[in-house]
């Protein structure tokens, strides 16, 4: 009894996921005969933690490595380096960055992913039942009758009612919002500990977006699921996530409590990002943050702040020193900037 209580309390104090120095380098040109020395630093040393039941938003512009980070957490992409310690409090803490074979297949029950595109994330030749039951089928969970029951329950849970009417439809018979609900059902059917949601609402109509977001938030609260919610939309991140991490060119530049970051962004990039959010009020005057130029190269980037080329605050110190480390700049706010 006391042991169990201790166990649960220690679970709560330890994060579900601890990401340490996660790297992914893609070769910039593939040649079978020459050694490649140019690498795209898609994700370049990312550190964060994800607590049980917590939603962490990962925001940033296109190509900054959000999706690659997410895919590494579910091992759809193999990390070049770094550790991802997964500790659900039940089994031993494991480093999922180096799993393979049977333990990896086992791990896939704990981590699932919801994809951005509701149209291409389902095999057009398989029914909704086949799609949702696929994780159960490949993991050989339950009999066929059990699977039908669980899929039916899951369909009801994600708001596709009556569930029987959806079981044997094909994806093309469903709307975008309905498909995304099916995708959520597929991710949740194995009762995972965490789900990587890769912009699940960005391709939906605005009118059905909130419904899907509310569903995901409700399910997370009800089932105790942690999300890594990848988005470029700060309003979505604010709705879904208690903490957000801002990424720029493969690095996390700011991470902290959502409201705190939105209220007082410290990193110049976060400020620029926030100033780009339109405010539906013509009388509001907000000082624009000027950043200039384009995104600098991700192929073998120089050893200086990734944001140097566009930063309004940058000086010689930023130029000559390596990318700044993440430092506490507020209560819960960690920022990677020498000048902030």
């Amino acid at each position, binding site marked *: 009894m006391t042991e169990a209580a201790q166990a649960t309390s220690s679970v709560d104090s330890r994060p579900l996921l601890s990401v340490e120095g996660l790297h992914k380098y893609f070769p910039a040109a593939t040649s079978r005969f020459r050694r490649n020395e140019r690498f795209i630093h898609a994700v370049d040393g990312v550190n964060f933690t994800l607590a049980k039941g917590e939603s962490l938003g990962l925001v940033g512009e296109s190509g900054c490595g959000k999706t690659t980070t997410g895919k590494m957490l579910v091992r759809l992409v193999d990390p070049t380096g770094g550790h991802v310690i997964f500790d659900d409090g039940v089994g031993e803490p494991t480093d999922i960055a180096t799993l393979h074979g049977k333990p990896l297949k086992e791990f*896939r029950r704990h981590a*699932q992913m919801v994809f951005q*595109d509701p149209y291409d994330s389902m095999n057009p030749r398989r029914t909704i039942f086949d799609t949702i039951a696929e994780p159960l089928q490949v993991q050989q969970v339950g009999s066929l*009758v059990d699977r039908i029951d669980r899929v039916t329950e899951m369909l009801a849970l994600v708001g596709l009612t009556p569930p029987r009417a959806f079981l044997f439809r094909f994806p093309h018979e469903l709307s975008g919002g309905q498909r995304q609900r099916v995708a959520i059902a*597929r991710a949740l059917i194995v009762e995972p500990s965490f789900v990587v949601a890769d912009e699940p609402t960005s391709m939906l109509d605005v009118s059905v977006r909130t419904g899907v977001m509310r569903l995901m938030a409700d399910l997370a609260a009800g089932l105790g699921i942690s999300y890594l919610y990848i988005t470029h939309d700060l309003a979505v991140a604010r709705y879904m996530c208690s903490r957000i991490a801002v990424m720029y060119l493969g690095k996390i530049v700011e991470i902290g409590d959502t409201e705190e970051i939105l209220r007082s962004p410290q990193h110049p990039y976060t400020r620029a990002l926030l100033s780009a959010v339109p405010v539906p009020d013509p009388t509001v005057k907000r000082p624009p943050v000027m950043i200039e130029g384009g995104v600098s190269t991700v192929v073998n980037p120089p050893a200086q702040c990734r944001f140097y080329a566009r930063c309004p605050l940058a000086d010689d110190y930023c130029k000559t020193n390596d990318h700044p480390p993440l430092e506490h700049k507020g209560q819960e706010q960690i920022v990677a900037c020498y000048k902030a």
Partner: protein
Amino acid sequence: MAVEVAPQSAAPSLRRVRFALAMRSLRENWSLFLGTRIGVIGLAIILFYLVLALSHPILMNTVWDERIYDPVVGYAFDETRQPAPPSRSHLLGTDPLGRDILSQLMHSARSEFLLGLLAAVVTVTIGTTVGAIAAYYGGVVDTILMRFADLMVMMPGISILIVLSALIGVEHFELALIIGILSGFGGASILLKSQALSVVVKPYIEAARAAGGGPAHIIFIHIVPNLLPLSFLYMMFTVTGAIFSEAILSFLGLLDVRMSWGLMIHTTEAAGYLLQVGKYWWLIFPASLSITLLCSSFYLVGRAMDEVINPRLRRL
């Protein structure tokens, strides 16, 4: 259109639902197929030859006297001169050896069908599997399989068959296997791999991997079913190619077969009637017309299937 299923009797009814769904998509595709004129024409020709092929054994057992009408060893005792022109008893006349042409034609139709279909099935089975595997694994596996495919495409098929038939004696069955393997590892795998490449990058493949599905699950549950329409299309064109190769080879007298359409033309040529087509038309036309019609009918059906599976070709 929603199909319901009761969980109590889930397993058998699931099979029933899947069957119903398969029938539904089959019906939809069938009505699209009927909308294409060339498909209907092609299918009609195929059915005509199918009836010919199937009725031959029946006729031999009932109406036709085996000594006269046997396609290989029969002799038309009722005719005074061979080759005899078409008459009441020999609707398409007889060949220079006194054998009934109609009987030969019908007898050969069956082996042409079997040859074409076997060659096509072998081709498509190999091509689909190799294409899906090459596209899924990529890298070295892809390179090896595709360079091997290049090698197969470069092989001069007819010349190889000539050598092989001189060495080991090739019958219909061996011919079908050789054609199937050559085009299965060759053109079919290149074509189907290029299609499979557009399937492997789809997010549902990633979703299957995230679910824990291994290579076999992904290749045979996700990639191959999405290649099947193109496979069937390719199958139709292979039938055409196989029948045509057979005709060429047996006309050259290189096939170890007892009777075929190509061999009928070969017999005519060997007996010296080939250059007197005007006078002895019944020796040439039935066989050559059959080759042409059956080859083009499978091609037409293939083209119609192309329209069914490729909505951009459909006339709206």
